[in-house]
């Protein structure tokens, strides 16, 4: 019963949130903040050591 009830609320919430993510994604892209784990670290080329 509790599971069904939580699905009833969480499904619309997840759906709205995921769609909002598309808008937020466009904003993030426009601002250039799309780095995978640290956007600040994408600038310099690395000196590699093996």
């Amino acid at each position, binding site marked *: 019963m509790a599971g069904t009830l*939580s*699905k*009833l*609320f*969480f*499904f*619309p*919430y*997840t*759906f*709205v*949130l*995921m*769609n*909002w*993510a*598309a*808008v*937020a*994604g*466009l904003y*993030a*892209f426009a601002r250039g*903040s*799309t*780095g*995978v*784990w*640290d*956007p*600040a*670290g*994408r600038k*310099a*080329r*690395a*000196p*590699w*050591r*093996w």
Partner: protein
Amino acid sequence: MAQVIFWAAFVGMFYVYAGYPLLLAIWRQLAPRPIHKRHYSLSQGRGEPTVSMVVAMGNESRNALEKMRNCMELDYPAGKLQIIASLDAPTDGTDTLVRSCQGVEVVYSQVRIGKAGALNSGVERATGEILLFADSRQHFERHALREIVANFADESVGAVSGELILLDERGREASDGTGAYWRYEKKIRAMESAIHSVPGATGAIYAIRRELFVALSEGIVLDDVVIPMRIVLGGWRAIFDSAARAYDSASESPEREYQRKTRTLAGNYQLLVELPELLVPWRNPIFVQFVSHKLGRLLVPYGLAAFFISNLFLTGVFYRTVLALQVFWYLLAIVGWLFSTQQQTRQAATANPEA
């Protein structure tokens, strides 16, 4: 005018979520393109192709050791599997952990260059005929590599995506919220694969032919879409194989999934800048799939807004009923949001009782 917008938005959104899967189901029946998968074994000719597995890592001390162990336990001849951990200037001791694993080649960057840079560097070191890419968090099934490689026996295949299975806290495939969405997504990918190619792989587990790799541009977010799509543009197929499995836990909360989704959707916009030919029907062999699957999802939120706003201006029993249903839907979403916030506050209090 409001009526036109209302119906255009409805038809557009219906197509993205229901019409397109239906189209794929029919397409697959009418024009299937089976994949001639063949499992290699040492008794057959030259046996398995050599594979270089590239795992890019930032700060991954929580997962690094487990991941390396998992890689080494894969069912594949040790002499034919090169494991490369490409480290992007970790600061949490990931490098020490990875270096303690015998049989793992470490590529180390002293300054942060992002995942794309780490992948490029890892591939520079790779010697295998097949490149296998993986993230550090997910766990491969023991036979996953053998399954994925078997697809390359088909000469039209340039890239293969495995299946990521999201598990709930009980260790079963997640069926709530994001889990349900992911299952729906995989069904679409399976159908796309059956007719030609998927417009993107699963970052947790995908492989390509070595010669088809083109270095990623700096800052690329969706390597798992850019790499396969470039291969598709080159005339090869990028397929989905549900027999090559990796496992992950479903995001603990919709908010975490939201953060992940924001990043990947931002990556989709970046993809259009990186590969604009994807929007040219005669250049992109899976133009319909790309527009329906990738672009359609980007447009749905604006469709939802248009659907709601146009509905406000329409009268009559039908339109008023639809409006009431829409309002009810968004009220449910608000209650879901309140529940989620409450749940997280409770979890935080349990994790830190003195706070």
